[in-house]
């Protein structure tokens, strides 16, 4: 296991290094001069020169890359041209809200997707299987913005069951202020026993969570079903049948664990997908997360912020893959040998 872990960490490091190089290139090739963007369109040549000096734009490219990497490692991810705040501070403010939304969505997707996949595999080619396949195909193929707007219109607009947008009722900031521990609102509300904000956040989470969870839920259900059906055709499953185990018992006792291997890999992929999907959903539901920050940064050509979001999402993706690889090593010992 230690060798396996070291190898995976090495691979993760290489991917992050590649993304760092990519974000550096993004910052150099996007249209517009960062010095102009920072100093403003009416800046004097002296102000522009000062901005260039400040960002090291006159240095040779290798020196700029070295400085960029050094700054990243020391926690200096640049200053947002829009908010004039350090990018890392902005990201730390926006990220917990995104994590809250994507975390809730993935949890829902796994809790619903896996059992539904098991049900479909157990009743393969029968009515429950057909229902699961049709539904999962629908939720996978429906455009996320359409689903977001439809749920918002029906459940928030017409039926008034859930709030239209936002993370929680901001009036509560004055009547029941929240003490921050993790910056993840629902977790902080739970830890500190702030029930008004906790219930308000739960209510606000329902619709965006359903939208972000739709795609992962569908693919997790389909993958669980496919992996279980493949497992059911293996020789060792025939041996288990010959020992007299029932189909349900074979599915849950023997087949589910190996079938979860590919599902785990998929979860890492859908995690990244959910973050990107979350950008659109955050825009529709005015969720104060990375997506909203990214959209605002793009519309202001705020390159340090865009590069910061890109790098953070890439790092999260790499970490998610790493966690999945380690879990797969635990679930399937052969993965360690590969």
């Amino acid at each position, binding site marked *: 296991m230690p060798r396996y872990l070291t190898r995976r960490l090495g691979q993760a490091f290489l991917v992050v290094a590649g993304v760092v190089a990519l974000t550096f290139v993004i910052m150099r090739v996007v249209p517009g001069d960062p010095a102009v963007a920072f100093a403003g369109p009416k800046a004097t040549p002296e102000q522009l020169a000062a901005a260039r000096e400040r960002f090291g734009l006159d240095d040779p490219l290798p020196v700029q890359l070295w400085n960029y990497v050094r700054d990243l490692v020391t926690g200096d991810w640049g200053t947002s041209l829009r908010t004039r705040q350090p990018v890392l501070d902005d990201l730390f403010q926006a990220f917990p809200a995104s994590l809250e939304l994507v975390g809730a969505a993935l949890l829902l997707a796994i809790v619903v997707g896996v059992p539904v996949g098991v049900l479909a595999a157990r009743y393969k080619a029968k009515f429950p299987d057909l229902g699961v396949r049709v539904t999962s195909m629908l939720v996978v193929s429906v455009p996320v913005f359409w689903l977001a707007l439809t749920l918002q219109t029906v459940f928030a607009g017409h039926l008034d069951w859930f709030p239209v947008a936002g993370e929680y009722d901001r009036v509560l900031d004055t009547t029941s202020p929240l003490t921050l521990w993790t910056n993840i609102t629902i977790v902080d509300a739970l830890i500190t026993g702030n029930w008004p904000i906790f219930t308000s956040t739960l209510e606000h989470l329902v619709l965006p969570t359903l939208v972000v969870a739709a795609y992962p839920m569908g693919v997790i259900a389909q993958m669980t079903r496919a992996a279980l059906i493949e497992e059911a055709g*293996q020789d*060792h499953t025939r041996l288990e*049948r010959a020992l007299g185990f029932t189909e349900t018992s074979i599915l849950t006792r023997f087949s589910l664990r190996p079938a979860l291997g590919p599902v785990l890999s998929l979860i890492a992929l859908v995690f990244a997908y959910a973050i990107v999907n979350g950008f659109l959903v955050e825009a529709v539901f005015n969720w104060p997360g990375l997506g909203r920050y990214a959209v605002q940064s793009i519309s202001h050509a705020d390159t340090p912020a865009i590069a910061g979001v890109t790098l953070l999402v890439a790092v999260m993706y790499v970490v998610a893959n790493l966690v999945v690889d380690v879990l797969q090593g635990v679930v399937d010992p052969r993965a360690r040998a590969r």
Partner: protein
Amino acid sequence: MTMLRAEGVTLGYGGTPVVHDVTLDITEGGVGLIGESGSGKTTLARAFLGLLTPMSGNIWYGDQTLKKADQRRFRKDVQPVFQAEALDPRMRIGGSVAEGLSRGERHRVPELLRQVGLAPELAERRPHQLSGGQRQRVVIARALAVGPRLLILDEPTSALDVTVQARILDLLASLDTERLLITHNLAVVGRLCRTSHVLFAGRVVEAGPTAELLDRPAHPYTLALRDAVPKLGGPPPVARGRTEARPAETGCPFRLRCPLAAAACERAPALREVAGRQVACHRAEDVLGG
């Protein structure tokens, strides 16, 4: 005594029959099922294991059909031995062997491993950490765990090299169980089975004492199988007839490959008694006469 009997069994997948109207008794002394890939051997074995329901006909377990039989007793009595690759690659050897044991019986794992010639310490390993021969012994130990009276052996040695194969055959021959052996290897069947059935395109084409079948085949397909076996120091194996031809859909299924095919072969031959065995061939006497 007949423990399992297939009576007029037709088997298939998705409504398409692949085994046609087979009647076969699993009697004492071992029964062999011989045939090329796709001849229906494994399908028939699955039906004997209760893993496939016949489209028509019945599998009898003692005096009851398999459907009505006490499943718990049947599963204890009849166990499969597949190829070594049938082991769950994620389970430890001890776990695989203990799958059919209750919690209170798991202490028997070391004894079962010793019974098949393996060191009990191997229980902690996983299949990929064992050799092919060791894995095959584990598959046998796993089957023996529930104390079966009949082993259904599906190509148990075909993935092993000849020296390991010989040791596994020794082990199987030493076991106090009846056996149905499915193989395309005539040497193996000669070693373990008193009687044999040759299957072609899902039909029994010849059945009788194994020694007779191998010495003097009465069906051109059995003859072709025998002559295709390479012999050390002997002439190169002979491929008789057009070995690539598909089974005929009418008449004798083997006629498109058969070097002795005649006009009579356009009628489907029934099994008949010839020289102490059952043969489904219009030209059986000619085959025996050389």
